[in-house]
């Protein structure tokens, strides 16, 4: 992907995430306490929109911008999906951020998110040096 386009898409994504407040620890906390539907409605309507788009792409064999056939990466289901998923879920509840919102919290001036970011880099590094020893 062209780096200029990628930056523009990132900016749009950052604006949307921030205006939706999905980068807010308070919204994430309310989601896990089931006290408001906000996050569920956003994630749910995002999935439905993505799924409709995917069906359209398949049905009309839409090509990518460089005229290639669109290939969907198959995501493997293994022990890591569950174990890693649970670990991430705990981190999500603690920080109020998943990977995208970490960058948004930083941009929005919540500077403690820089520490979340540092932790996430350490975590990704720990995974890459230990992956051969983890159950898969």
């Amino acid at each position, binding site marked *: *992907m062209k780096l200029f386009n*990628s930056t523009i*898409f*990132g*900016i*749009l*994504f*950052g604006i*949307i*995430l*921030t*205006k*939706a407040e999905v*980068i807010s*620890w*308070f919204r994430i906390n309310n989601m*896990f306490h089931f006290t408001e*539907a906000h996050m569920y*409605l*956003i*994630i749910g309507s995002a999935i439905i*929109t*993505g799924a409709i*788009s*995917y069906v359209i*792409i398949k049905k009309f064999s839409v090509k*990518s911008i*460089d005229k290639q056939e*669109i290939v969907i*990466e198959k*995501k493997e289901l293994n022990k890591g999906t*569950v*174990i*890693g*998923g*649970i670990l*991430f*879920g705990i*981190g*999500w509840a*603690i920080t109020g951020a*998943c*990977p995208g919102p970490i*960058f948004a*919290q930083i*941009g*929005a*001036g919540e500077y*403690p*998110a820089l*520490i*979340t970011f540092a932790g*996430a*880099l*350490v*975590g*990704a*590094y720990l995974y*890459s040096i230990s*992956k051969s020893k983890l159950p898969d």
Partner: protein
Amino acid sequence: MDNIFSIWPWYVTGPLIGLFVPLILIAGNKLFGISSSLLHICSIVLGKGKLRGYNSDNHKWKLYFVIGISIGAFISVNFLTTGKVKFLPEFYYSLNGFILLFTGGVLIGFGTRYANGCTSGHSISGISTFQLSGIIATLAFFTGGLLYTYIIYPMFN
């Protein structure tokens, strides 16, 4: 349009977020996901070739995308919002808060790489392309979140 400065409703933002699936598929022929950028930044911090088995050449766009996210958030709070919005509780502006955030960050980095995806890659891209792993991963994310909310957090407070 008079609401542009307040919070945008879910029925606008949810579908807009979902549109990033076809956008990234068409513009880059890639399944949209963000957590892989963490590994890419790691490889940059460590220096080229230091992260075993990682080829950084195809992933440069992800770095630009996440830098874009920060810029977008900056624009949002400074030019598209009236008044101040808090996204983190006051507690996180303390030493104990920093320790907790760092721990949470490690869990995010390790967990999303081990699971091969996060909310964007698994929950949104995975489920919307009808992949079972996306549903299982999303259930695991919520299991972890509920575990912290109802068991781990109350144990320490």
